[in-house]
């Protein structure tokens, strides 16, 4: 879809610029005339939503830094100062904090959409792997950002997560001391986390640009998984995809702002309104909700090193997903068994989240272990096998055929709930 450019500036100034630096041409070809499959549904709008969330987090973040103090004696108070004294600080701080949660809601939907429609399959492997890299950078950024308010959960979350590296054989202790810049999470740790929390979003922007570049080289996937074959299968990005993205974004922002204005603390932990105390661990420490499934995997394994390996492995396994899924058919719509496995994985992931939120006692441990086993079995055993054993349903001959069949009701293709 990196076809030849149709940009034809009529404005002499734009033509003058285009002859010297074809940036307007790049923008026009990428976001106006760029052809997208005509059958994209609303699940495909989350890429655009994520882009806006990233910009929203960067803007609110830059503004918050104008009032925040990264020092153990002042960090907690400076966040309260933002919430109470700074003009509109209350909304800006909540927008950023709740925005982190909604950034993750959108990215989980985006990833699940990729898994459902087989978006990771050839030729989009690098596009997918860049996405996994983006998710990892997001997790690191979110984790460091949560430390900055220097509440009890900030401190103990930081301590537990950095201590994960002490599981590394031989160098573990030295690595952790190096990460902390001391013998415990302290001022040195807070200041470096602040520095990196400011840096990583810009790294994120860089990887996102690569992600979008890769997308524009291979062209977008679509719910049928059938590649674009002719101009009939596509529409111009603007206005069609732009408007659809904008509409989905508006709905998303209605929910997001409802949380910002009316339930700003719903997704957080009240204990984080208590200042960090290195001598007392809260009764029940849990990470933010978006890390819970991975936290459950960490705790499911009774060995320290293997637990850490399993936790990182549960995300790193996504890197080889394009090669684990042996089916030639992309979309779950045409894969009856895979479709059920996909929903089982979603349920499993949700169960892991619930387990992660509960104390590691009694039968929660067993449930966590079964769910962890199933999680890895899905990727490492079931996906390779199902691809070989399953008989897919017949694919439509083209995207426009599928659209016409759906609209005339000839062949009621199973569509996921929108």
């Amino acid at each position, binding site marked *: 879809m990196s076809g030849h450019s149709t940009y034809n500036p009529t404005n002499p100034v734009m033509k003058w610029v285009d002859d010297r630096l074809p940036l307007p041409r790049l923008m026009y070809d990428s976001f106006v005339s760029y052809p997208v499959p005509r059958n994209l549904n609303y699940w495909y709008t989350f890429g655009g939503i994520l882009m806006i969330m990233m910009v929203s987090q960067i803007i609110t973040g830059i503004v918050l830094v104008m009032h925040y103090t990264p020092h153990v004696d002042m960090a907690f108070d400076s966040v309260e100062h933002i919430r109470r004294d700074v003009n509109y600080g209350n909304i800006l701080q909540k927008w950023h904090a709740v925005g982190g949660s909604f950034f993750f809601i959108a990215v989980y939907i985006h990833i699940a959409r990729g898994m459902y429609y087989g978006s990771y399959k050839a030729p989009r492997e690098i596009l997918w792997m860049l996405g996994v890299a983006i998710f990892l950078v997001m997790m690191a950024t979110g984790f460091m950002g949560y430390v900055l308010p220097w509440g009890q959960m900030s401190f*103990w979350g930081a*301590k*537990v*997560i*950095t*201590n*994960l590296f*002490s599981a590394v054989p031989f160098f573990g202790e030295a690595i952790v*001391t*190096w*990460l*902390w*810049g*001391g*013998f*415990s*999470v*302290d001022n*040195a740790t807070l200041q*470096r986390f602040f520095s990196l929390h400011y840096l990583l979003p810009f790294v994120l922007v860089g990887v996102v640009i690569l992600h979008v570049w890769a997308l524009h080289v291979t062209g977008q996937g679509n719910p049928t998984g059938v590649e674009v074959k002719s101009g009939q299968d596509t529409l111009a990005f603007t206005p069609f995809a732009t408007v659809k993205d904008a509409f989905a974004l508006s709905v998303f922002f209605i929910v997001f702002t409802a949380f910002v204005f009316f339930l700003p603390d719903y997704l957080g932990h009240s204990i984080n309104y208590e200042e960090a105390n*290195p*001598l*007392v*661990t*809260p*009764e*029940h*420490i849990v990470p933010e909700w978006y890390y819970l499934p991975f936290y459950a995997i960490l*705790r499911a*394994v*009774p*060995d*320290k090193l293997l*637990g850490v390996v399993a936790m990182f492995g549960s995300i790193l396994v996504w890197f080889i997903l394009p090669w684990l899924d042996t089916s030639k058919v992309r979309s779950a719509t045409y894969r009856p068994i895979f479709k059920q496995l996909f929903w089982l994985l979603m349920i499993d992931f949700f169960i892991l989240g619930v387990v992660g939120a509960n*104390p*590691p*006692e009694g039968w929660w*441990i067993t449930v966590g272990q079964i769910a962890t086993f199933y999680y890895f079995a899905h990727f490492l055993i079931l996906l390779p096998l199902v691809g070989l054993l399953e008989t897919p349903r017949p694919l439509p001959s083209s995207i426009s055929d599928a659209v016409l069949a759906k609209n005339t009701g000839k062949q009621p293709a199973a569509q996921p709930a929108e």
Partner: protein
Amino acid sequence: MSTAEAPDEDRRDFLYIATGAVGAVGAAALAIPLIDQMNPSASVLALASIEVDLSPIEEGQSITVKWRGNPVIIRHRTAKEIEEAKAVPIADLPDPDARNANVTDGSEATDANRVVDGKEQYLVQMGVCTHLGCVPIGNEGEYDGWFCPCHGSHYDTAGRIRKGPAPENLPVPEYKYLSDAKIQIG
């Protein structure tokens, strides 16, 4: 210009290798300060020792003091707790190492090797779970010792790991008695 080719090529090779070597050494020299600045600074390392008076601690009572940013638990153990700790065979311990900075490395994790001889009622240990660094809660857990609320590790009355994901006994920091009831940690 010389017509001989060989000397010229030698000169080029030398320039390539020399440039590459300077670049590699330069990059390494640049990396060292950039990486090492993250290690504990001199001011952090300087906060190395504290003194604690043990006399106000009643039998069955624990105190927590802060040393190098971490909690140190000092417990005045009851006779029953000492008996329990002594009764455990080494074979039952997941970590048979004493983890005591004051005894020879690799000593067995007997109760005697976890305390100072003649002062066995005072157990001094880091309040940092060896799993992921939370502060274990005293008088909790299945072994009358400490229980870590984060991931469910149980320690016994000598601070030895008995059950749960933590791999090691709670470490005993370097300390010495300055007088009968006063210790210096660090």
